């Protein structure tokens, strides 16, 4: 079979230096998205391990797999985890979770953990939905928006595009940024429109980079409109899979006139980490 351009790399990591046996409370969060599933294990609010896998057709199985990989080679088992919170599209399919919490809350908390407490605006660029979250200075959500109906599935759209363009999905962003000035974006309504319209641009003699630019700019612009609805403020943080696509984030930053914070964590983990943090709170509360 030919190269799978759409396939993004799964990842997992388990800490070697944290002695989890000494930890007071161990909590976990599992974020089952439509496209990717993350698990995060935390010892007293320190990230102990995580996994980021592609979601399979059986959500329960995906949750288990992510958890197994996050536990990694450490001797820790599910039993050692005091409390687990499930979140995301498939939140109710985490068999070993005591509770489910909505994505917005988890991403907000996760973002503040990963990007620092100064975060005021979180933009979650997911596979199925994009969300803009506006936080008060303290840990409370002021307003949030989820994309219009016609804008669902942008993330999956990009996978399709990678196939059609035969460009590895990780390289898309970089390649699109090689253009001098961005061309006008293609249709910003629906990814299906955008994909075909972008491919059609070759007829006008567009180069690959220009087509990618017109396409990714369309998606960035679409999100820009949605984010504007929550009256974004600094500090800004991007989470979710598309946050790794510089072709989108750079353009979004340009249009918003803000630079996003950076973090050593994988932006896709925000939901899972947030869930684990909430789990921690639950334990403290009890």
């Amino acid at each position, binding site marked *: 079979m030919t190269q799978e351009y759409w396939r993004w790399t799964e990842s997992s990591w388990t800490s070697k230096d944290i002695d989890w046996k000494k930890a007071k409370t161990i909590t976990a969060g599992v974020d089952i998205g439509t496209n990717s599933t993350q698990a995060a294990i935390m010892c007293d609010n320190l990230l102990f391990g995580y996994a980021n896998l592609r979601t399979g057709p059986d959500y329960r199985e995906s949750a288990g797999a992510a958890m197994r990989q996050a536990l990694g080679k450490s001797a820790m088992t599910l039993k050692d985890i005091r409390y687990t919170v499930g979140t995301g*599209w498939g939140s109710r399919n985490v068999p070993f979770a005591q509770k489910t*919490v*909505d*994505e*917005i*809350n988890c991403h907000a908390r996760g973002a503040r953990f990963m990007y620092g407490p100064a975060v005021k605006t979180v933009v979650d660029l997911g596979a*199925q*939905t994009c969300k803009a979250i506006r936080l008060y200075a303290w840990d*409370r*959500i002021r*307003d*949030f*928006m*989820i994309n*219009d*109906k*016609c804008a*669902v599935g942008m993330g999956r759209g990009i996978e399709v595009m990678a196939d059609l363009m035969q460009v590895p999905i990780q390289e898309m962003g970089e390649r699109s940024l090689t253009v001098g000035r961005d061309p006008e974006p293609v249709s910003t309504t629906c990814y299906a429109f955008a994909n075909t319209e972008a491919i059609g641009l070759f007829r006008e003699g567009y180069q690959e980079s220009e087509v990618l630019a017109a396409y990714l700019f369309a998606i960035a612009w679409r999100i820009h409109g949605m984010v504007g609805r929550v009256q974004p403020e600094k500090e800004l943080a991007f989470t979710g899979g598309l946050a790794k696509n510089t072709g989108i984030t750079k353009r979004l930053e340009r249009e918003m006139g803000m630079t996003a914070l950076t973090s050593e964590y994988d932006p896709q983990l925000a939901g899972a980490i947030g869930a684990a943090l*909430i789990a921690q*709170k*639950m334990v403290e*509360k009890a």
Partner: protein
Amino acid sequence: MERFREALQNRHEYARNWKKRTGGKVLGYYEPYVPEEIVYAAGILPVRLLSQHEPDDVTDRQMYGNCACSRDILNQFTKGRYDYIDGLINAEGCQWMLNAFQTTLNNKPDLFNHYIFVPDYVDGRTSKDVMRSELKVFKKALENWTGKPITDSNLDRAIEVYNTNRRLMRQVYELRRADNPVVLGSEAMEMVLASQVMDKEEMNRLLRDAIAKLAERKPRSDTGVRLMLIGSPTSDVALEELVESLGANIVIDELCTGSCYFWNEVIAQSDRLMAISLRYLGRPHCALKDNNWRRRPAHIYQLYEDYQAHGVIIAKQIYCHPHGTDNPLIWKILRERNIPFHYFERDTTLPYEETRLRMEAFINMLKPELVLK
């Protein structure tokens, strides 16, 4: 309560049985500005045409870009679900519905049909007169069709029946103002919807003993978050039930198919038609007719206050331009008053998972302590 749900879900059967039982005619109507009293006075059953969720592979032929409601109504007509309808009425409202009206007639030209012009300048000084003359024309049309005159006493009776229904529905809604209402949002909404497809007299009987039963009912220990629902017309209670399953309750709505349908009564006067036209021009404006004086925002805010809601859900049908055009103002007003709201679009189906995500988040946003509950 179940009886309302039944009538709503089996509305086609209900109408068919009504015809068998009474041998009367059934008129389908599209817009909330249709003067039902006159229809009812003629001994005809007025039925509001509501959409449902049936896969639609027939309307693309005749329609493009329509909202799901108008589209599905045509869909049902084409598939014969509405075979019991003897005629169609449209009172000028949204253009998609006008389109559904016309297109259906192109398929079924022999249906009785009438179009009532409703002034855009609803508050205009001369509008009530043109409205009245339109009602007169409509009355005549009905008389010619049925072959029997509509007497003043007919009208009086119809007005009485309808006002009663409105009063009873107001009673039900009044119950929802309690700290812990005995009636759920979904139940109340089912009553309104049912009363738009049922014979009002029967409906009133049902309502009376429903209200009596409600008096004995114990309220839920905790109503949870109190929500207000505004936006495009709906034909089911999926959303209400969803938020109830998430520990919240919709305590008030401002929908054409909801409170706006029964909110104000016909004030009797010797000129019955004028009384009726004043009632319809004076009803809580639908987004489209809210033209010059902008009554909607004030009305919404008052309801919000009266029912002590915590937040507002704005649920708009895709391609529902009247509500789309109103959004900026509504958002502005709500933001100015620091009323939290969540806006989203719905379509033929209400994608359960996605909507749950939104509602969960919105409810948690309004009541953060729920997250750690």
